[in-house]
């Protein structure tokens, strides 16, 4: 009887420790993902602003590099959470269009309603803000879907 009790207790303790460890690992993994997503989104937003400045300096059209950067950002953020590629492509398409329209209208609004440095660099400011918006919306959508899927990995 005492031996059986010991075996059961050891088994339960072992399971408890195993689940605590797994839980800790999942929390660490989730923290890592959040950190990487934050770094990615901010870096790509800065990259967008940089590309706008650079291409404006050389008087070149900047749509293609900005589109490539947006798509890459969305792909990298979604792949942190192992989102399927077909949905990644759908989101990339959606955010590229949304980014274009918001960016265009946003730039016009800023130019009409601001002055000084912001007015002169409206497209830089808008590129940065729109990229942040795209990145964070992507992050929250993907994270909310996969939040409960962590345990399956």
């Amino acid at each position, binding site marked *: *009887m005492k*031996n*059986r*009790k010991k075996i*059961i207790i050891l088994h*339960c303790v072992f399971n408890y420790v195993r689940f605590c460890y797994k839980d800790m690992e999942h929390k660490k*993994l989730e923290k*890592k993902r959040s950190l*990487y997503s934050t770094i990615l989104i901010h870096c790509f937003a800065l990259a967008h602003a940089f590309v706008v400045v650079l291409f404006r300096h050389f008087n070149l059209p900047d*749509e*293609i590099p900005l*589109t*490539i950067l947006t*798509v*890459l950002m969305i*792909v*990298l953020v979604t*792949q*942190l959470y192992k989102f*399927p*590629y*077909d*949905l*990644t*492509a*759908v*989101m*990339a*398409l*959606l955010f*590229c*269009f949304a980014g*274009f329209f918001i960016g265009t209208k946003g730039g016009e609004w800023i130019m009409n309603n601001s002055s000084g440095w912001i007015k002169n660099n409206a497209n830089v400011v808008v590129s940065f803000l729109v990229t942040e918006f795209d990145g964070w919306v992507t992050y929250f*959508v993907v994270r*909310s*879907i*996969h939040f*409960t*899927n962590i345990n*399956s990995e």
Partner: protein
Amino acid sequence: MRLIRRKNISMIFLIVVIVLLFRILYIDFFQMLIERYGFNVSSLFQSFVGNIIVLLLSVVLDVFAVWKLSRTKPYGHNSLLRFVLDICSILFVSIIGAIILNFKDLSVNANGHPYFYFLFSVLCVFLFNAFLVSVLDITFYALDVRQRMYQEGIKKRQAEYQYLQLKEQLNPHFLFNSLNMLDYLVQSQETERASLYIKKLAGIYRYFLQASNMELVSIEEELDFVGHYVDLLKVRFPEGFEVNQQIPAEYYQRLIIPCGLQILVENAIKHNIVSKSQPLQIDIFIEDDYIAVTNNIQLKIEIKDSMQVGLNNICTQYKDMLNREVIIEISEELFKVKLPII
């Protein structure tokens, strides 16, 4: 944590190329149509939103297309094909929408360029449908993930229950007591009783093995098994307890979770005094749509730590598999557990 594997680089490259092509063709072409032919986006959108038939038709077709795709092509498999099918379905719905939208007024709004205006309409309606399909696709995927997680949770808990059942099979304490009793019968030269005892013990383990692979068993089989189990216990506690089962024959083919009754009988004997002076009375009967197991409460003096693993597992099994609750009623004198019957 490797972010991107080598084999997925080609997929990412394809996504970038497709989105880029789309963006160039769509937006630049779109801008060209507006500037060259003087088409008005806002008036077209207003007429699209104002036309309830076209709007509803687009929504219904989009929902149908996404639902059908999610059924026939699972998410994550054949990503490129799925994406292409998505685009084709959006295009198809947009063309139908544009045709119905411009059925009467094409020449009026076209500014002398009906074909380009039709193309412009398709592109505008495509934007709306693309947004709707994207949202629907993500929603359906989220629902799919939740459903899969729920199923995995059930499988996990079922595996835990089966594991506990397997552990019970090899319960050395039960086997040790049973073999001790068998030895006593052999030493007492009660060969017939010993032979019957061995058959019942074998029957119990045979049932354990079968039950570990089954989700539900008939009440008749479970009662037969409980009968063997009680007979073995009776050799140890000849007059210490009594089990009365009053199940009408018409309920014998109804189903319950295997080993559910046995766990309840075992728990009753484990936690209560079993002696000639204080016999334990266990009753098994049908009440409403449940099979009830009751015992009089006469708890053992020494308090043993009970983790209620067996009872909790039965409750979880019923909840996961059948979405029904096990009812536990405790009064001063009576402990009652009611298991749903199927």
